[in-house]
């Protein structure tokens, strides 16, 4: 894997595709984020990507992300002024100048959003993230495991309304921030988990931006065979090749839950599998045998085009290849499994590493 140091429009396209792969079916379409960044990069220098070690230990790093419904972002785009305001709110709270931007979620839309902020502010972006994939709730980051709090957190909407949060736990931050997101019109920009370079180093999932760029390049180059190359390169496992035979969705508590039934094709003829998803694909099973569970990544690829497929695109007849990718080792401790394992999502099965 080649490390990226400068991100221009071309590289960003690969990053958006790689981000969709690590989205594990969720996190929203990175298309909107890519367009936003393209626009920024038109009038700005390419974004510099740095290693966290290049920063002084006490430098301030600000993660930036979008919170809310990606569907809303398809209709109402950010104003583009959010990032400057967010960062100045955070600098005021932290009483310190920011040195670099961080991507908190290298999956889905949030894989490209931080590049917009970095391009806009002329700041470098740290090569890494705090999930190594997409997760639905804001406490589901490696920083939570290190006892780092999400707050002080700032949130801002497209109209220029800002809010800051000071809470007793990351779960509370999630609850309050989610509620305010609705009032702000369904999507908002946030900066949370402000960290120093020293703190960041300990819990950062390193080089995930280089990784999604690399994944994107593989998908572009190998199209429908990409899943095989990715399995080999990323120590993953081709779990299944199948056609979608049924999709059942139920809405509740704001998160869509769904079940996909799959009928094997190719080498998997005569076998059946099942996927559970909420916003991301969470569990893959063949009969009672668990093939993969969260926090490992279950990534689906259109068998004909090789493009990553989201949970929203699941429909009868779609032929897919299912790739299991091991999550970052940080997610495999007992504490981490409590935070992001199958039981947190109310599935009564144990996590078994891929």
């Amino acid at each position, binding site marked *: 894997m080649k490390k990226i140091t400068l991100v221009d429009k071309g590289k960003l396209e690969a990053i958006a595709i790689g981000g969709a792969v690590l989205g594990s079916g969720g996190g929203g379409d990175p298309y909107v984020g890519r367009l936003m960044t*393209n626009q920024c990069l038109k009038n700005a220098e390419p974004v510099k990507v740095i290693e966290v070690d290049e920063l002084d230990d006490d430098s301030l790093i600000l993660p930036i992300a979008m919170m809310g419904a990606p569907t809303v972002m398809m209709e109402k*785009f950010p104003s583009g002024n959010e990032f400057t305001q967010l960062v100045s709110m955070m600098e005021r709270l932290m009483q310190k100048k920011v040195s670099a931007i961080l991507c908190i979620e290298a999956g889905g839309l949030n894989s490209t959003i931080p590049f917009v902020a970095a391009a806009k502010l002329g700041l470098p972006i740290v090569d890494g993230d705090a999930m190594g994939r997409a997760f639905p709730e804001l406490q589901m980051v490696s920083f939570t495991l290190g006892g780092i709090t999400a707050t002080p957190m700032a949130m801002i909407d497209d109209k220029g309304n800002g809010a800051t949060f000071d809470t007793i736990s990351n779960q509370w931050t999630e609850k309050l921030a989610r509620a305010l997101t609705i009032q702000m019109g369904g999507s908002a920009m946030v900066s949370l988990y402000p960290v120093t370079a020293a703190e960041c180093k300990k819990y950062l999932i390193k080089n995930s931006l280089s990784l999604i760029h690399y994944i994107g390049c593989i998908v572009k180059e190998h199209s429908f065979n990409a899943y095989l190359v990715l399995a080999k390169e990323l120590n993953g496992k081709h779990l299944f090749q199948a056609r979608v035979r049924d999709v059942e969705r139920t809405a509740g508590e*704001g998160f869509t839950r769904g079940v996909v039934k799959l009928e094997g094709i190719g080498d998997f003829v005569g076998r059946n599998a099942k996927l559970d998803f909420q916003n991301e694909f969470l569990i893959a099973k063949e009969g009672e045998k668990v093939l993969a569970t969260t926090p490992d990544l279950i990534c689906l690829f259109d068998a004909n085009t090789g493009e990553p497929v989201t949970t929203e695109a699941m429909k009868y007849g779609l032929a897919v290849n299912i790739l299991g990718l091991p999550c970052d080792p940080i997610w495999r401790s007992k504490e981490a499994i409590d935070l992001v394992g199958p039981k947190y999502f109310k599935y009564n099965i144990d996590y078994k590493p891929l």
Partner: protein
Amino acid sequence: MIRIGVDVGGTNTDAVVMQAEKFLGGSKRPTTPDILSGVENAIKATLKQATIESFQAEALIIGTTHFVNAIVQRKNLAKTGLIRICLPSGGSILPFADWPKELVDSMNGNFQLVKGGFEMDGSEIAKLEEKEIIDALEKLKVLGCDQIAISSVFATVRGDMEQQAYDIIKKYSPDTNISLGKNIGGMGLLERENAALINATLKPLAKEVVDSFEDLRKKLNFNCPMFFTRNDGTLIQASEVIDLPVLTFACGPTNSMRGAAFLSKEKNALVVDVGGTTTDVGEVKDGFPRQAGTSVTVADVRTNFSMPDVISFGLGGGSIINKESPSVGPQSVGHELTDKAMVFGGSILTATDIAVSYGRCKIGTKCAPNVINKDEIINIIDQMVEDRVARARTSSQKIPVIAVGGGSVMLAEEIDGLEVIKPPHNDLANAVGAAIAQVSGQVSKIVLIENKIDRATAINQVTEEAKKLAIERNADPKTIKVLAVSDMPLSYLPGNNLLINVTVVGDLKMESKS
């Protein structure tokens, strides 16, 4: 009711005459560079064959590729400016994002952003200001824009700000030509706005096309109204095409699927339309093509107007075969099949030659070539089709596959375990689809489900809106039925927000002829 259906394709122009459900006659003529003389030839031949006089016709219905071709070739495009009602939101992705530069240049694409728009719950992002709209208009006019498109955030939830802007401009400058996004696309600001821009830039051409068809109608002594077919297989009045040409953009595949369903009398089926170079595979439900769910890229621009979910791939009657390392297409001899294919005495081995030599059909003027590995090649062809048919299916139900189009003779008797039907007149399915088109209404909205309004009520409300729309478009209220209802919860948001889509259709209401 006697209807004439015409389909102008890239290679051929087809025409048919239908009386209610009955096929009275049809013919195929080469599409001419001026389009109209090809249409005239096809209509004349058809009327003659059906022994019908033009004055007997009660509707003349046209499906044409004029507009999509203009965009693809970047020709005859009007200078167009966009007013997007969005500020303070929206600035992070400006209009024309991700468009091919030459297309923007060839239509002198410009834009202005103004305050306004709605949140998903219908509350205002900001107030619309009359002065700001007029300033934006003036700026665009200075930049040379003759056509104006207007888009607004969540116009699918509330369209009134677009309407307000329209009224302001019309009051200030009555001659301004305006295209509104809400009339054209579904959810997704950029895609809807793109559709409005494409629409705006096509308007002068649309006027020209409609006028010339109108002249032809008179010349051929039709005294019935003329309609065009929309992307969703329903009708639009000729006068409406002048305002909304983009709605007829992708009618070709739709007409062929509708025609296939009609000719085979199968309302739920898969349709495989094999042309000379490409094959389209889609599904019809209740006689209408299943619509693509998300965005559709047309001529390199991402849009989201309602289009059939069609899988196109490079297989046709003229596909060139490489028998050494066996492969089929995507190169094709196209409309030169009858000169170049071996069964017509030519020297190029095509898919048609393989089909004849394998015994699937008998066509041509010469004997089929002897191809040693014909079994292997026909197998490749069958696999190509089977794979797409399997993808186009949406259930395990055993529905038939309807094969239409000139190249369909090469298809097997069974595809993906489904029976293949080749209905009579299948080579004219497109024109038949045009002749039988109905009227539709479609509405797409995000609704918050809570105590006051449950899911069923919300769907009912959206359905009523769709019906109202269909009636406005001349549907006979008595014949309106709901064609499709879908609802999808929005992810990552608490509260139960549903994206509801409803489509209804009805028969065209005509002044009865004495």
